[in-house]
């Protein structure tokens, strides 16, 4: 009787603590839930609906849930979530971050599905970014070129026209800022390092180049320094943006009139033209006044801009890999990718390039995407981004720091990470 009492007490105490235990997960596809992580607001709602309805029509027993993630701290979140037992099934990752995960074995090997997913029609630079050691892990999702958005009336009022070289672009920005005190001729918050890359590349510089088995950081080369000095000139003379701000919400300044020009991913057009009563309000009344062009290079033509964009893979820990691959196939289908094209994002397939249309934005995208370039192809590059080395560098440059000394210090930090 007494022993029984102790057992009962123990059991009672254990039961109260067991409330959080969950049921076991079955491997059956019946009632399966596929979780798709999309990052940022770039993917239009129309595409999200298309994915969900198509998938659930093909698999009446399963459901598909899209969970939106933010770009801030994405590498950290993917590291913890992909390795856990509660991993999402399909995940989007920035193209420069992909190799951190493909090299670590976080993604399912998709080599045998390569042809089903689009094969040689897929954007080659992104296929490369999603491959590791001869295997294909993460498919291209979309590419977003960086474009310059400007207020037509402001440019006209200052007697300027769309620039044809990088020097003209910088001079335009300075002239706009001088003619409109307190406003940005080129809006450039200090943490936005993506926009600085074209200046480095156009001057013949590089961020880092492979040197045997090692990486050699190049920010302090004379060519890169020349580019960084141009960056400092723009940040100091043309931009009224916070010297330590980040590049989120560029539409705010554009809509309240303090930003006259800015360089941003192509989908920012939709942020600017969002309804005035939206959650992130835009200013649709500016539609006629909104001009766009591709950033010009040193010698005319489009500059080498950063080829931003995303890859998408299936988690190695996915509980339903077959369903996840089916979802991936829908994402890379012509139907889904066409929606990207129609919304100003470069589709993952070369054959769908004409879905971008023929308007001003489309032409600018085509010009920019034709000359796009990537960050160093090292699995450790994502760590350079996550450590915020480039953000810190450009904040200090925006503050008016000594470019040569800052670049040399940043080179040391980048090499330490890339060669670790």
């Amino acid at each position: 009787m007494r022993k029984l009492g102790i057992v009962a007490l123990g059991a009672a105490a254990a039961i109260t603590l067991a409330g959080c235990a969950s049921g076991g997960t079955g491997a059956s596809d019946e009632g399966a839930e596929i979780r798709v992580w999309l990052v940022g607001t770039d993917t239009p709602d129309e595409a999200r609906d298309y994915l969900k309805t198509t998938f659930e029509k093909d698999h009446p027993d399963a459901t598909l849930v899209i969970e939106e993630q933010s770009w801030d701290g994405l590498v950290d979140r993917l590291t913890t979530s992909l390795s856990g037992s509660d991993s999402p099934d399909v995940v989007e990752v920035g193209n420069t971050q992909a190799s951190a995960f493909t090299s670590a074995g976080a993604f399912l090997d998709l080599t045998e599905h390569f042809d089903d997913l689009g094969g040689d029609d897929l954007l080659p630079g992104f296929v490369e970014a999603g491959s590791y050691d001869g295997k294909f892990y993460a498919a291209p999702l979309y590419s977003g070129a960086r474009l310059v958005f400007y207020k037509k009336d402001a440019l006209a009022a200052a007697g300027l026209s769309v620039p044809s070289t990088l020097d003209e672009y910088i001079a335009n920005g300075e002239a706009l800022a001088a003619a409109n005190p307190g406003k940005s001729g080129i809006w450039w918050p200090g943490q936005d390092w993506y926009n600085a890359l074209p200046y480095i590349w156009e001057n013949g510089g590089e961020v880092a180049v492979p040197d045997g088995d090692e990486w050699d950081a190049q920010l302090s080369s004379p060519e890169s320094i020349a580019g960084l000095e141009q960056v400092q000139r723009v940040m100091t003379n043309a931009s009224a943006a916070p010297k330590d701000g980040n590049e989120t919400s560029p539409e705010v300044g554009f809509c309240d009139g303090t930003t006259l020009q800015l360089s941003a991913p192509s989908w920012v057009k939709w942020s600017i033209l969002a309804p005035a009563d939206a959650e992130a309000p835009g200013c649709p009344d500016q539609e006629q006044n909104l001009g766009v062009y591709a950033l010009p290079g040193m010698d005319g033509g489009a500059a080498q801009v950063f080829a931003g964009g995303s890859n998408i893979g299936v988690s190695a820990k996915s509980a339903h890999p077959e369903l996840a691959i089916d979802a991936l196939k829908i994402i890379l289908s012509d139907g889904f990718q066409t929606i990207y094209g129609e919304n100003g994002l470069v589709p993952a397939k070369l054959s769908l390039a004409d879905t971008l249309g023929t308007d001003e934005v489309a032409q600018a995208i085509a010009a920019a995407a034709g000359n796009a370039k990537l960050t160093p192809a090292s699995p450790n590059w994502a760590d350079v981004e996550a450590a915020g080395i480039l953000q810190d560098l450009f904040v200090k440059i925006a503050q008016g720091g000594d470019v040569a000394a800052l670049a040399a210090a940043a080179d040391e930090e980048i090499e330490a990470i890339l060669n670790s």
Partner: protein
Amino acid sequence: MTTVDHGLDAAPSAIEGERLTAPPGPNTPRPRRRRGGLTPYTLLTPAIIVLALIVGWPLVQLIVTSFQEFGRAQVFGAPPEWVWFENYANVLTDPVFYGVLARTLAFTAVCVVITMLVGTLIALMLMRLPKGFRMLLSVGMLLAWAMPALTATVVWGWMFDTAYGVVNYVLVNWFGQVEYFQHSWLIDPLSFFFVAGIIIVWGAVPFVAFTLYAGLTQVPEEVLEAAQLDGAGGFKRFRLIVFPFLKPIFLIVTILQVIWDLRVFTQIFALQDIGGIRALTNTLGVYIYQTSIAGGDFGQGGAIAVITAVLLMSISIYYVRQVTKEEEL
């Protein structure tokens, strides 16, 4: 402070404060002890098992990781390599680590002093306020305390925003301080920690104030009254009566504040995203996160975490010793 029931009153002694009691006689019946037998332990076991699992196991994992070369590939299943003390050697020879440590200690010291000072003053004020205002202040502080740190940081970040922040607006338009037009509050590390300090102190004061207020209500009225009759002023009464009475509470609250502020993470991490230079504003908590999770070097991050844990533990041990000393007195 244990009272033993011997059936006899203790005799007063010549030494002040001491009372003589006879040793328990051989015939005194022992207090009923074994009542309930194993029941308390049985009831405790599940909780101890859960504690060992959710606190002990991660700690063991952390220590193991700190002796290994543990990168992102290891997270996804590759076997780790044992490097023993290499991670510790790397950390302890890294000037960056000492910079972070010094920054953290200085920031903690400032935050704790201000938090305790403001918390004490508010607790004293709560004693004096009429009921209505006391309710108002309490509810306000409860709201501040209930606000998640991340939300609070984002809101404070907006207020100090460079282009659209209310602080700059008020300084420029109401007080004519034109140099604060587009002034960046976060770009200078000292100014960054000023803003971070405001957020942390603002979030920590309610706890200190409530705890001390609870203690203050227990200070015997008659002692204070007697002191007042003897001519002791407000400050003297606080120093000589209230403070000694509440010393254990002050001690535990201070130590808790030190521990919380030393490992502060959310406020700094979120503020770094809003502005400022990461390398110049990292504190221990953020530095561990950046090394291990963002940088993918879990081994070295683990080593820093273990060093931090040792630091916090030595503070806790000091605290436990102080408290047991208090109880022995």
